């Protein structure tokens, strides 16, 4: 009975016990909701499971050979290029706004709120907002008519050459707030006296940005770039909700979802998810290595 009471244990034993006890819950949660599904995904990727049956067969690497031998499955990465290009626009805008708003500006907090707001919205809501926005005679067309650009209106989602630009645009609007808030945080961590010193030297705003802000946030810039690129490769929610991948807006993840839930090929879809995971890891590694080299 004596050992059941924690206060009777030695200090280090107590410490070890408390550490273990407190990390059990987060670890259990992490394992159940992060690692177990991934382990299962790897397992399913070697089967022909249809998502329902209580029986399935192991088929070895058949799913993987199928993915890599059929160009159909990889063709969709071309669409990711649109999101990839949009990434730079998104980061540029975020950096621009973050820099401006880190100086003394009237209504600073109001603008911060406005810029961050889209990121707080639910992706489904954003999908529907932009459906109305891009509709023929919708918000965008009305706006263009109002400012005299009426002759340039397009079928924003109906034209396969423009659809991915439209969708990537919606995606930029949504995710820019996230980049923005991170940049803002990084910029505000730069000590005030550096600015003061530059003031004395007579630096203007551009010089301040070029020589103080940019070098101080390189790390954060790299981090955001990695996040944005893996986001571009796995673009999903905006095109899925708005067009369901039709009219040439299919991305790799939408294709995976279609295979799993429309055609009952959970095994093949799991294999595709594993492939995507590998690609993202690879891209991140390559980026890290090349960026290290610059230093």
């Amino acid at each position, binding site marked *: 009975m004596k050992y059941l009471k924690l206060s009777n244990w030695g200090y280090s034993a107590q410490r070890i016990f408390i550490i273990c006890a407190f990390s059990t819950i987060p670890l259990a949660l992490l394992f159940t909701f992060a690692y177990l599904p991934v382990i299962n995904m790897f397992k399913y990727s070697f089967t022909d499971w249809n998502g329902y049956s209580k029986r399935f067969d192991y088929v070895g690497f058949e799913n993987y050979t199928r993915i890599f031998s059929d160009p159909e499955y990889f063709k969709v990465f071309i669409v990711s290029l649109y999101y990839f290009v949009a990434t730079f626009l998104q980061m540029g805008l975020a950096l621009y706004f973050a820099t401006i708003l880190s100086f003394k500006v009237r209504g600073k907090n109001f603008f911060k709120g406005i810029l961050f707001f889209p990121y707080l919205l639910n992706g489904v809501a954003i999908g529907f907002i932009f459906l109305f926005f891009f509709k023929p005679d919708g918000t965008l067309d009305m706006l263009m008519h109002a400012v005299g650009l009426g002759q340039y209106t397009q079928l924003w989602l109906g034209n396969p050459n423009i659809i991915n630009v439209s969708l990537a645009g919606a995606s930029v609007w949504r995710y820019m707030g996230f980049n923005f808030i991170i940049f803002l945080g990084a910029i505000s961590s730069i000590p005030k006296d550096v600015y003061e010193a530059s003031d004395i030297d007579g630096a203007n705003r551009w010089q301040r940005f070029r020589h103080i802000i940019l070098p101080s946030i390189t790390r954060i810039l790299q981090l955001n770039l990695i996040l944005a690129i893996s986001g571009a490769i796995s673009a999903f929610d905006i095109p899925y909700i708005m067009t369901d991948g039709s009219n040439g807006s299919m991305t790799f993840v939408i294709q995976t979802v279609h295979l799993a839930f429309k*055609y009952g090929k959970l095994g093949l879809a799991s294999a595709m998810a594993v492939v995507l995971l590998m690609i993202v890891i690879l891209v991140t590694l390559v980026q890290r290595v090349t960026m290290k080299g610059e230093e």
Partner: protein
Amino acid sequence: MRKNKGWMMLLTMLLITSLLAACSSGGGSSQAGEEISTDPADIKGEITVLTQRTDIVDTVFKDYAAEFNKEYPDVKVNFQALADYEGQVKIRMSTKDYGDVLMIPTSVPIADIPDFFEPLGTYDELKDKYTAIEERMVDGQVYGIPTVITFSGIIYNKQVFKDAGIMEVPKTPEQFQAALQLIKDNTDAVPLYTNYASGWALTQWESDLPTVAGSVDYVNVDQPNTDENFVPGQPHYELYKVLYDAAKNGLIEKDPTTTDWESSKADLAKGKIATMALGSWAITQIQGMTDTPDNIGFLPFPTNASEVVVPLSADYNIGMNVNSENKPAAKAWIDWFLAKSNYAVEQGGGMDADKNAELPPILDQYKDVKFSTLTPAKEGQEGLVDKIDNEGEIGLWQPDFKKRIIEAGIGNRKESYDDIMKDLNDKWVKARAELTK
């Protein structure tokens, strides 16, 4: 404080164990069917009925339960309506808790049905009583009975047809295209609304396949045994040619990618849309949106076949959870619901699965049309069409290739109609060879 630490430890332990317990849920195994007593006085218990009808679960269904209790006073019936029925039931079916009586999700592969559902009787027992029970049949056991029997074709606005100067109901694809062209020339209505964006509405076209084939055998008997499914002259080719031609000739909505199903119903009712390819279940919904419901008409899908066959098909099938603890009560509810509720006609916009049911009045003008259910697949070929379909990623009942056809029709894709059909046929041939080797 010391005391608190002990409590903390206990709480932590409790949390962990409850967490682990919550995560483990075993898969159910099918049990042997029990002897079912049919005397209402013997049947008691509480059952839960899952339904997709969120709109009437608190009104009409409550009345059903009250009626039911007059015959079976000891059975308590609870209802749960699921908004995204197919998706939510699918997830619940990985546990044992998915109600006692439910609609069988259409995406469950036929072969897996016995793992989840209790047989309701053998085919030989039930075939004289109910229509279309072959669809959810495994080894001669029937697992689901249709709640509503619907029929498919074109739903149109009679007033728009009149305004466009269409004197006779179009019967062949050529006449239909001509009629759509007349509507475009003479009225402001959209001749054929595809409902491209909703996706599922495009799958309605597939149910018109038997009409184009002119035979109830084509879908389940002929189709799985042919390599020429999407070649010119074959039903699939002719069916979707109607859609392609309409898209190509500018007879569909201006921008299909931004269509909206809910407003399309009102637009058809008001005469802003002339035609849509849908099932009969939509008729009551559309009629409910106008003061002149007689304007809404139904016409069989245009066909060159010598005989006009309109397929009768089953809406959701009602079935029983194999893990149910109150099987006699659940069975009693199913029987009562099918025989006495009149759900099919009043709420489902179709007819009873009962063999003696009569055709609804909207079909009075089609005395010469044959309404019939599809011939079931040959023995050993049950579900083969679905298997080929999934293996080849063709998607007969998915919107994907219908979207491709529309996109090609309006010039968004470089491929022609024949390119798409050839691609689909190649996939069909390859998948069929894979499965029948």
